[in-house]
């Protein structure tokens, strides 16, 4: 799906921009979530076949969509969820110690 590629890259640039520029740690975690969403969309959109039916074989399918990118995306979604959970856990502990979520502030306080 050629036009989907434009949207995928737009969303990925938004995520990367959010990770690089925003100082708040939770905003950075959000940016990573957006980037992961863009990668999932990229994987699925290249697995799609024009007029295909979902990969559940009910015997009457003419054209099946490629099941392998969907399996990869499922694994990547679960890994993304585990990483986001770990990131938020450590962000909460950082807030408890530093009292702020601003990365420049944290770097200054760390000394």
């Amino acid at each position, binding site marked *: 799906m050629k036009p989907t590629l434009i949207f995928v890259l737009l969303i990925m640039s938004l995520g990367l921009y959010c990770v690089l520029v925003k100082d708040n740690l939770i905003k950075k975690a959000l940016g990573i979530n957006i980037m*992961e969403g863009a990668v999932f969309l990229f994987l699925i959109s290249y697995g799609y076949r024009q007029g295909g039916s979902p990969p559940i074989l009910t015997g009457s399918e003419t054209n099946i969509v490629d099941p392998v990118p969907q399996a990869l995306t499922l*694994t990547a979604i679960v890994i993304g969820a585990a990483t986001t959970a*770990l990131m938020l856990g450590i962000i909460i502990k950082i807030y408890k110690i*530093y009292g702020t979520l601003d990365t420049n502030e944290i770097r200054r306080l760390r000394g």
Partner: protein
Amino acid sequence: MNHLPVLLIINPLLAAFSLSLSIPPARKNYKIIIGVSAVIQFALSMAALLTSLQQPVHYHVGGWPVPLGITLILDVSSGFMAAFTSILFTAAVLYSFAYIGRGKARYYYVLLMILWAGLTGMVLTGDLFNMIVFIEIASVTAYSLVAFDETSFSLEASIKYMMLGTVGTILIILATGIIYSSVGSLNIADLYNRIQGIPEKPLKISIALFVAGFGVKTALVPMHTWLADAHSSAPAPISAILSGAFVKVGVFALFKLMYNMYGWSVLTSLGTDQLLINIGAATALIGGIMAANQADLKRMLAYSTISQVGLIVMVLSLGTLQGLTAGFFHMFNHGIAKGALFLSVGSMAKRAKTNRITGLSGIGHDMPLSYFGFTVGALAIVGIPLLNGFMSKWLICSNLIQNGHTLHGIVLIIVSIIGAFYYFRVLERLASPAGPDKKHRETSYGMFVPVVTLAGLCIITGLLPYIPLVVIERASLDFFSYNSIITGIIGGF
């Protein structure tokens, strides 16, 4: 049917699962469970190395032939890497029995065993997406183990490491998506036959994304900022494993993709090998310079790891068989020496309650055995002739110059001189008699035995380098001619 590759990965997982059961035996004597499974895993890894020396094992998980399912390939190169990581892990487990207090130690060992499974899986797997899953297992455990101490330094280092590491993983998943959607298979050996199917531009971008993604995991130059904080604020056995094994396995995985999936001729035609050599040289130089002006001893060791990884990347991207041998040999030597260094610094810092070099001055007198381990490790990395570091650095230098990269050979010599400078400065400071008045007792039995064994291994490899070199030559031969073996078996699907 040899089930060794799968047992190598399942054994630590079973240990981790059985340890996190909240039934009384798992809560009370968890050290016994961990000790037994560590010994079993060490024995399995040595057995894997021996069987791979006879003939490689291709294990099709689930019984599916090559391109359909996932295959674990135990040839001499992966057997060697698995054995090398298990030496470091066993030393670290034995060390952390004495080093980690009782508090939350149970989950520390659970994560340590899962990290062991992740690294062994990364080395054994012959499938692209399976390698990503194992990278993610090893990374998630590494992120949380860096934050084990919950001090302000380690939490900040852990969140920085996690942000960069997750972006790296996203780039690698994107590269896998590019390769799958243009060729259609995920098995590394099968992809070697189909790589011409990828049009010219996506091939270039997928190589660039892989180099960037793995560059973050192995701290190559532009993406190396996280390593110094992460390895210096992690507990000592963890930073020994991360510096000794995790970074090396990442380099091994990167070059496994470059050699066995793309084929080195594709990279030379695109000029990527020159780029990799220059990245390696830049990493070596920057790592060495940054290590020279560090006040904290563990940060200095972390930067020295970065510079040594730069050397390894430089010689591995020469594309010759001898280059591979030199690279693997230096991986082994540096891993063992850096493991001894980090463990001895851990025990010294635990006694002196500080990581700073000024605070540790004169501790050599009070803790002779740990100081002995530190000296042997430091001299090995600097490359003093009698120890193992010299032989591998000599091989690297001769390979670089033979292949016409005299400039990079000079870079290696400069890095070694800088290394000599900052290591001797520390050795002299630690041995200076003007130490603080308080006497420090020698560390407990459990903490200096791994340090002394690793130091002894350095000396033995230094005196008789030909025993490991024979194994490593076989390993680089298997690594280099990986595809001719595999295509003989699968014969193109």
